[in-house]
């Protein structure tokens, strides 16, 4: 088996403020190979964004990470500033939700990309870096790239800006791309284009992609595997097919049922279809007790009883429909009953 591009082992991220330390991510393990896309799905407080940032070592002040993160053979948590500089951009790059804040309003688009090229390899001349920028803009589908390099971020539409940011992130051919809600701020038609572009480039470059999203619709379009986080812990991990067709965690099943679908059954006999909502609101690890963080919102916790409240479930192996696939769920129930019972 080839070495994975990304390997995360027992990652814990904690915040310290006012002398109090609290975990926001606990015991997270992930393995991601080149050419594959892993979607990290979760809601507020799930720790999905902080996990992406921990991999880049871009944690906010007061946060610290323990465990092990290996990107393209490089230990990220023990790396010094110089090594990190080398890793960022060439080993791992990131695309954020808000493209405007990822770009400087004072620099033209070409300067952003050229800077990324020269930071990575100072021997490249300015002229050559600029040429690379034109090439890259062309590759991400920006029309008239020779003209576009001279434009400033505010002259671009949201979709075009996100394309430019992708060009900037990919110009050094990173082994891993972390995309944190890359299409959330975009209109659906533009979103579809950007997702298709990411998928295409990912296949072409054979890179690994970690897609952070709250939207199962987006996930269904690009992911090979899915990691569902709840309150800083892994709720479920599996192939897209397993997650969609035989979810093993009540939260995964509940999230799916709460997501509206355009193709929802049309013959509803007058009465309008309603979504099955999950009661309550998402919590963070800080507010969770010793038991399963999802238990207070779970329709099945009564069936299991006491155990859900006192003992946090560990991920265990579940049936999979993939050859050699891995399907894990952290739930005390061995088998999930029909959906109707999951979300009452």
């Amino acid at each position, binding site marked *: 088996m080839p070495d994975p591009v990304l390997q995360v082992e027992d990652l814990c991220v904690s915040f310290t403020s006012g002398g109090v330390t609290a975990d926001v991510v606990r015991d997270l393990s992930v393995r991601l190979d080149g050419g594959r896309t892993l979607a990290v799905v979760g809601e507020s407080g799930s720790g999905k964004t902080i996990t992406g940032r921990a991999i880049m070592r871009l944690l906010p002040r007061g946060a610290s990470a323990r465990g092990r993160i290996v990107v393209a053979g490089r230990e990220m948590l023990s790396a010094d500033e110089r090594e990190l500089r080398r890793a960022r951009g060439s080993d791992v790059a990131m695309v954020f939700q808000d493209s405007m804040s990822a770009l400087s309003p004072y620099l033209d688009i070409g300067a952003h990309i050229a800077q990324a090229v020269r930071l990575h390899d100072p021997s490249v001349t300015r002229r050559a870096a600029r040429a690379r920028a034109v090439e890259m803009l062309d590759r991400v589908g920006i029309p008239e790239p020779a003209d576009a390099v001279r434009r400033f971020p505010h002259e671009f539409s949201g979709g075009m800006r996100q394309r430019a940011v992708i060009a900037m992130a990919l110009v050094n051919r990173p082994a891993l791309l972390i995309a944190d809600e890359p299409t959330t701020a975009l209109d659906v*038609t533009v979103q579809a284009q950007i997702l298709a572009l990411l998928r295409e480039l990912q296949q072409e470059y054979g890179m690994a992609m970690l897609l952070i999203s709250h939207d199962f619709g987006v996930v269904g379009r690009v992911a090979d595997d899915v990691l569902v986080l709840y309150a800083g812990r892994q709720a479920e991990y599996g192939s897209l097919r397993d997650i969609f067709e035989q979810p093993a965690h009540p939260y995964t099943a509940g999230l799916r049922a709460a997501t509206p679908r355009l193709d929802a059954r*049309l013959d509803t006999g007058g009465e309008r279809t309603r*979504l099955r909502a999950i009661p309550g*609101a998402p919590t963070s690890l800080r507010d969770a007790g010793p038991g399963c963080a999802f238990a207070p919102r779970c329709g099945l916790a009564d069936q299991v009883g006491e155990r859900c409240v006192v003992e946090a479930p560990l991920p265990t192996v579940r049936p999979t429909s993939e050859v050699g696939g891995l399907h894990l769920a952290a739930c005390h129930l061995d088998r999930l009953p029909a959906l109707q019972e999951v979300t009452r």
Partner: protein
Amino acid sequence: MSEPILEMTDVSKRYRTAGGFGRRRKGFLAVDGVSLHVERGEALGLVGESGSGKSTLARMANGLVVPTSGTVRTDGQDVACLSRRGLRRLRRNVAMVFQDPLASLNPLQTVRQTLENVFRAHGETTSTAELVALLESVGLGADYLGRYPHEASGGQLQRVAVARALALKPDLIIADEPTSALDVSVRAQILNLLADLQRDQGISFLHVSHDLAVIRLYSDRVAVMQRGRIVETGPSDEIFRSPQHPCTRALVEATPEAELPA
């Protein structure tokens, strides 16, 4: 059939833009000759891409934005002819729920103060029992009265915003992206709450959203906007089963479904 709760006829809105030096100000036509109505008890969904003019159109329904031309009749009254007092009366009848509950609630006021202010603004008094009943109608307990916005979650705050909208028993609620800022698991709660209000209290809705799947499930009729115009309108099942206009078709095709790719 009684007259519609909201009727807009050939409504346009041109925003003035800052013209450069020596440049003629042409303005931006956000809404371009739109006619639309909402029947009593009906939920009308308004969809379109950003910048298509759907929020401007929604705001013209209760006089928050004054149309450049055309007429808006709410509950049979021409909004343009109303005095300040008349507008105030109108807003009893037409309430609004915005996208971001944290931005639309005063951070320095408790839920009780926020709700009391609605009554006070319309010269009415209220009792604690009434406020508690109001909160209960949106699924919140009496303990929320003393809370400040930062002490509640996004979904709970949006319930407070809905309670505020319900306070004066409106006939029409304009909801502008009411669930876009909420978590997926909470979004369904709020959508179901709005659907219950329509069914049980006969409240009409003008629901603005960019999310076609949400509109498909929770609206009786749909109007699709593009560049300031309504390009297609009809019963929601029909529109989504066989979209006619290229704009609608593009939106339907681009909407990602939570399912396995074929």
